[in-house]
């Protein structure tokens, strides 16, 4: 608990400044997105931006708290934090409140708290703790499965809460595992799954199967130096074909209609222009409006509080998931590019610091932070600009809401604390 002046300068100020810039700029955009063009008082608690300001101020309390706790605490208590977090996720099913169809909220004296936002750093701590344990060897299947379970439990609970978006974020840990040395075959597997899925859905099963089989055999006969039995390529091909069928089945029978539509639109599966137009107006309404808002910003934007589509609330959820469209409309290409650059800088800075860590725990945790933030950033901004299918997750530090902001802040500042302790590690 020794937070003397000397120590305080060990904090990575670049990260902190990037964080402050993002939070500050985020708040400006929340003002635009949640007001109707007129501001009476920035501290008006009844308005979204007033509330958010309170959240932001409380964030600083959290930061001081996180930074003042001994760095070793996080490593020691990782398991307990994880367990508490899992319990809180389960508790939601008993005491929780349903908002927008997702049962993932606690209602505490008027404030709502979303435990899934806090589960992210808890999981990151647990993963870091488990992998850095001397007895764990991530290269063995057994430990791989155990670590996967650590992620699977919170992810599954969140999926049960009907919050598919937040579930996807747990995929971020793949980057961590890869960094920590899981076999290359996993990367190949993930790439294959992604490519096969897209191909199967876009061009249907049969052409995909034919192409993939031909490629596998070509590889077997012409590229592979050490030729094994002919059964290998046949076996792989069969798996691919089976997977192809599987994904087709998953798409048409497991996914809910609105999810199908999102994917169908993203992959341009619908050919009938009239139906497409109609889909754009209904399912894609949010995206359509958000793209239009961004486009209308032009090079320099319409200016703070001048976005006609923002003020008119044309983009639903504009202060939360679609906050980036406000940036696009009011700050234009210059402003939104700046936000992208700030995020990229922050992520690279965290990665850089993670690689500098002497303790494996800190490195893994830092890597988790970068991965989680990156996935949020990529999915959210990609979605708002129509690059990837609609998946509702917040933009870190930008989107309005207390739980999200606090969750991300704790996530980031635990790492800053760990990093500041680097010098003491050996």
């Amino acid at each position, binding site marked *: 608990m020794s937070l003397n002046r000397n120590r305080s300068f060990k904090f990575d100020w670049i990260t902190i400044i990037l964080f402050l810039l993002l939070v500050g700029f985020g708040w400006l955009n929340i003002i635009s997105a949640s007001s*109707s*063009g007129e501001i009476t008082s920035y501290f008006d608690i009844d308005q979204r931006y007033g509330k958010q300001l309170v959240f932001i101020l409380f964030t600083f309390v959290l930061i001081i708290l996180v930074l003042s706790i001994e760095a070793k605490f996080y490593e020691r208590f990782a398991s307990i934090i994880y367990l508490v977090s899992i319990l809180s996720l389960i508790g939601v099913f008993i005491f929780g409140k349903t908002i927008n169809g997702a049962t993932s909220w606690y209602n505490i004296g008027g404030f709502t708290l979303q435990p899934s936002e806090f589960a992210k750093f808890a999981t990151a701590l647990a993963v870091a703790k488990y992998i850095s344990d001397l007895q764990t060897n991530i290269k063995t299947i057994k430990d791989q499965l155990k670590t996967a379970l650590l992620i699977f439990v919170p992810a599954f609970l969140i999926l049960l809460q009907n919050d598919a978006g937040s579930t996807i974020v747990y995929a971020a840990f793949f*980057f961590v595992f*890869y*960094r920590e*040395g899981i076999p290359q075959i996993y*990367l190949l597997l993930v790439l294959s799954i992604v490519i096969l899925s897209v191909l199967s859905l876009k061009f249907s099963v049969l052409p995909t199967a034919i192409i993939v089989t031909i490629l596998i055999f070509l590889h077997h006969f012409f590229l592979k130096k050490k030729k094994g039995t002919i059964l290998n390529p046949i076996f792989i091909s069969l798996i691919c074909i089976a997977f192809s069928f599987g994904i087709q089945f998953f798409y048409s029978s497991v996914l809910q209609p609105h999810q199908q539509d999102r994917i169908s639109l993203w992959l341009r599966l619908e050919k009938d222009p009239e139906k497409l137009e109609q889909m754009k107006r209904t399912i894609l309404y949010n995206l359509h*409006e958000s*793209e239009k808002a*961004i*486009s*209308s*910003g*032009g*090079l320099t934007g*319409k200016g703070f509080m*001048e976005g*006609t*589509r923002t*003020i*008119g*609330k*044309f*983009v*639903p959820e504009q202060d939360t998931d679609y906050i980036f469209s406000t940036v*696009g409309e009011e700050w*234009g*290409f210059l402003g*939104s*590019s700046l936000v*992208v*650059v700030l*995020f*990229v800088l922050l*992520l*690279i800075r965290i*990665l850089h610091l993670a*690689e500098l860590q002497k303790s494996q725990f800190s490195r893994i945790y830092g*890597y988790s932070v*970068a*991965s989680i933030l*990156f996935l949020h*950033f*990529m999915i959210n*901004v*990609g979605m708002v*600009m129509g*690059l990837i299918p609609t998946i509702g997750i917040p933009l870190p530090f930008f989107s309005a809401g207390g739980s999200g902001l606090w969750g991300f802040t704790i996530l980031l500042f635990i790492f800053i604390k760990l990093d500041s302790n680097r010098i003491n590690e050996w």
Partner: protein
Amino acid sequence: MRKLLLFSIIILVGFTFIGRLFYLQVYNSKTYSLYEDNAIRKVFDYPKRGYVYDRNGELLVANQPSYDVMIIPREVEPLDTLEFCSLLKITKEDFKTKFQRAYTYSPRLPSPFVPQLSKADYAALQEKMRKYKGFYIQKRSLRDYQTTIGANVLGFIAEANQSEIAADSYYQMGDLIGKQGIETSYEKDLRGVKGVKFIQKDRFNRDIGPYKDGIFDTIPIAGHDVTVSIDAQLQAYGELLMQNKVGGIVAIEPSTGEILSLVSAPSYNPNLLVGRERSKNYTKLHNDSIHLPLIDKGLLRMHEPGSPFKSLVALTALQEGVLDVNTTVTCHHGYVYGRNGRKMACHCGGGVRNLNSGIAQSCNAYFATAYRKTIEKYDDASHAMDVWSSHIKSFGLGDYLGYDLTIGKKGNIPDGAYYDKWYPDFRWQATTTLSNAIGQGEVLVTPIQLANMTAAIANRGFYYTPHIIKSIEGKTIDTAYTTKHQTTIDKRHFEPVIEGLFDVYNKGTAHFLQVPGIEICGKTGTAENFTKIDGVRTQLTDHSIFIAFAPKDNPKIAIAVLVENGYFGARFAGRIASLMIEKYIKGSITRTDLEQWVMERTLEHEYDKPFSGKPFGINANSKIMLVEEYERLKKLEVNQSQTILK
């Protein structure tokens, strides 16, 4: 290597995002326009459309308020269609088709749903309007005609069509635009500039308030009032005289080129094309293929000029020096020419003709000679034809006149090249084209060209481009209408021709049309008239044509009259021209018998013939109907020629 995976993906995603932003915001973005922003409601305030006055300050066209029910299809929410339809007095099927049409035009832009509600319908609807989301009422101003005349001149306004909207961004769906007459020609002056208010909407389409406190809002600018050169009384009188006949009257003030009256008969009451019945009435008028009320006969009817053209043939011959005032020609009831002794008939009575009696008696032989001499002056017939043609064209014939109404015909004045094309081996000469001498053959004119030609003769050699505008409030009129056009004929050649035209009234073919106290110069004309009926070229009853100007010195009015199938020139056109001149100069009519004769006569039976299948016989019916009149005139002409012979 493993360290680089996430790093490179982050960089890649960063660049992808910036690229996408560049595509959306810079590369693919249109310049931002408030008008296209559907977050901003545009409320238009239409200004007063300029009034139209006649040359004497009489108000012809004013405005009345009208209310359009507008629709923005995307914003329409489920509604009680039964009630809505009954308020609008439409059926449910109408509702569906109208909605579909508006949707097809644009789901997000406003278009008129039910235009031009009456005040009573508006009052009933107004209170309930806010129940119907996606519909609103747009106030506009419609025309309120203070008169029933001059529909072809005054024109009308109607909703701008899609091509007009595409051509000028000022117009939106449902905006009114001039479609004919001065409403088209002076649209920009008359319409003014509409005002607009920008209102910020939210996504539920509720108004939040003025966009940026209204700094971009504009107030409407009223349209300019316009005074037309038409004399409403004369116009009304002309339309009265032309009742039951088809044709046109064009009267021009020679000293200015102002059009005093532009009668097209039959016409229609301009009030028919205002209000909710507009399109029904328009269709009815449009489908009347016998009378063609929407066609301005004064501007669009192309016909052979007939004898009035002889005055130009005479002027050309004088200018070219191939004859003088005293040159005489002996008429043997026709003009014989060519190796085979072809004969151009003449009804002047025969005898020795000079310029004066040639014009007065409209002697074909005299003008055939004059024309032939003009063409044969040059060795090369083609060149000679060019010379002749350019003289004639200097009177404004053979091309668009350039008046300020948007419709017209070129007419035709043949030149050398024209015949070279017809007779490719250049085997043609003056006699080949001899019909031109008497205003037939290949010569074609419109009534307004004839009137302008008459004005040029009246002015002794110049004219101003005819125009309908007299003044525009706060503006000067186009200098094109105040620029003198000189003909290629020397001034001195006009006097003898004008004397001839004067003698047409004095002792010639229009002798019986003299108006006491006014020295009128004129010329009768009869144009042959062919049409194809069931593929057979059939000659119909001739068109009656007359040109005149008065007074002889310092002329105040030049007029051309065309009465289709009216038979010989003096019969209808001559009478009407004389009455018009008397009306304009004296203000009242002394020869009421003549007036009564014109008003009572109808030519409807003529116009029915091609459709009823009744036999034509060339001009037979007219002859039987008016045989007495014909005989009387004939006798008069014979007497006249005998006096000259003596």
